[in-house]
């Protein structure tokens, strides 16, 4: 008999996951929108379900975890487990797994795409052609990317991908981080503003969290200056109001922005600017990533039910 599992149906589920889970398990489904009132939806199967499959958002709260009396494992599709009540899981020795590290390359690629798009006025040129303006005027010049200086804020796994990509454009790569990293050839700055003064492009790839909240504000933009281009894929690190002001007043040349403090709502001022390339938090969104995510969720579930070690056990207390 197939084990019974509960799958949270969220908008962000990898499309490959649902059919994969259905092929292996007896699946009960709970819509994301039904979670607030989960007890009235899960009554029929709550004492039979052995695995809970959820997403970074919406995670799983103590009420849901507590209601599933036979729960053995929580498999999260996504790297971040902050919305899962880990204490509630730990109290019952229920392991939590996630799918870390599968989109680093994709996010790094996206940062490079934003650097190119912003400098080369990519979006503007596409509109220029489609609107027929090319018939009557010439498109203005963009700016060179190769051979320029790239400063990376946070040389973690994504920052390292950006550095590698930047090097292939003959860019002079430097970085800032909490401390100098021994195994990289890139120039280190311990002062963020000093690095901003030095570079043509600044890419923010550091971790979100209390330590980096609003790390990037007006002083950084002023140091980056009127020929500087700014790219951000890290949530919460940038003071959006300062960024909007810097873009609107020409303090910096342009920006590629994938994350917003108010997402999915994007400030009106940004929508009107020509010197920005905007995207809806898609830096890590490729079909290949969703496939890998789905595969990892399935692999962790299989390992659990086969009594094998879990591939991606989230250590209690690590988050």
């Amino acid at each position: 008999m197939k084990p019974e599992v509960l799958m949270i149906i969220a908008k962000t589920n990898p499309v490959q996951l649902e059919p994969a889970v259905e092929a292996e398990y007896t699946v009960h489904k709970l819509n994301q929108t039904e979670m607030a009132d989960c007890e009235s939806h899960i009554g029929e199967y709550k004492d039979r379900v052995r695995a809970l499959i959820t997403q970074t958002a919406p995670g799983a709260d103590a009420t849901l975890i507590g209601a599933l009396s036979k729960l053995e494992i929580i498999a999260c599709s996504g790297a971040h487990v902050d919305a899962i009540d880990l204490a509630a899981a730990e109290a019952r020795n229920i392991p939590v797994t996630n799918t870390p590290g599968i989109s680093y390359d994709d996010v790094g690629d996206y940062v490079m795409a934003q650097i190119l798009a912003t400098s080369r006025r990519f979006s503007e040129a596409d509109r220029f052609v489609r609107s027929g303006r090319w018939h009557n005027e010439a498109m203005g010049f963009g700016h060179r990317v190769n051979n320029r200086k790239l400063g990376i804020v946070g040389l973690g796994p994504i920052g390292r991908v950006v550095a590698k990509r930047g090097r292939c454009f003959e860019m002079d790569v430097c970085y800032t981080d909490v401390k100098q990293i021994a195994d990289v050839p890139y120039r280190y700055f311990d002062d963020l503003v000093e690095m901003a003064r030095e570079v043509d492009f600044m890419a923010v790839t550091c971790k979100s969290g209390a330590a980096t909240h609003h790390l990037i504000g007006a002083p950084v933009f002023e140091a980056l200056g009127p020929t500087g281009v700014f790219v951000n894929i890290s949530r919460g690190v940038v003071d959006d109001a300062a960024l909007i002001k810097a873009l609107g007043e020409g303090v910096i040349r342009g920006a590629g922005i994938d994350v917003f403090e108010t997402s999915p709502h994007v400030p009106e001022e940004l929508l009107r600017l020509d010197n920005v390339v905007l995207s809806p938090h898609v830096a890590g969104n490729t079909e290949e990533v969703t496939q890998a995510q789905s595969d990892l969720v399935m692999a962790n579930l299989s390992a659990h039910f086969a009594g094998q070690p879990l591939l991606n056990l989230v250590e209690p207390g690590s988050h």
Partner: protein
Amino acid sequence: MEPNGVNSAEKLEVLLVCEDPPQMLPALEKHFEVHVQLDAHISDALPAAAKHVCALVTGTLVGAGQRLINSLPDIEIIACTGGHVDRIDMAAARVRGIPVTNAPGISAPDVADLGLALILGVSRRLIESHHFVRDGRWPEGGMGFGRRVGGKKVGILGLGGIGRIIARRVHAFDMEVCYSGPGRKDDVSYPFFDDLSEMARHVDYLVVCCPESPQTRHLVDMPVLRALGPEGMLINIARGAIVDEAALIEALAQGIIAGAGLDVFEDEPHVPEALTAMDNVILQAHVGAFTTEAKLEMVDVTMNNLLNHFAGQPLPNPVG
């Protein structure tokens, strides 16, 4: 450098027939008396005053036909502001012993970079994303997924200066490179395909980097596009005429290929409405070389050739 005579009261006269780069005119005016005639390549009406210039400054797109060259009896040099001189009648210049100079390779990295932007852009749906946010659609739900470039295969048609830079760049994105062209290159290890359709069948991205010539006209046609296939993407940063645009439009509309990133078109600046209405294409206005930095370098190199000539020094960039 200030060659004899150039900085005296009587400046030498030159004829400028191109708009590109726009910084050329002010640079020339510092040393020469400049006649500007932007329609010189299509009009016979060259003003008498412009006929006795001693140098012709032209661009890659305007070039210099036999008629223009022969209507300038006193020119000693033809300086092209760009790399390609295929629109300059080299035979007409040679007959009169007029040296032609160019500004080679300056914008090759810029064109290659736009090629990378197009590869990444069509794969990651960059323009679509931008409009998705700008049009306020995000609050209603997420956008669809793009595709990873890593692990995919890139076929370069024409492994010249630009093609080689693209090969190096995409390699760092963990993409596999192969190429096709008139012959195998001895100094690279990328797989070579004699047959373009065969390469198209093998790759995910076909990147057109070769020069335009009678041999390359419509080289990318329907059979090549069919070979590229429904997951394949075409990138053209070379010349519009190398791709059969009607076939491309049909291939894009019918899902014969997945998408395209195009900086060049067959009849610029006319871009068929069928293309401008499509979501699976990114369109650019032949801006591969359009960076301020490249333009300033082109001006420097062109001035250097002219000033060397009039100073009786060897030409830094003679062609042919």
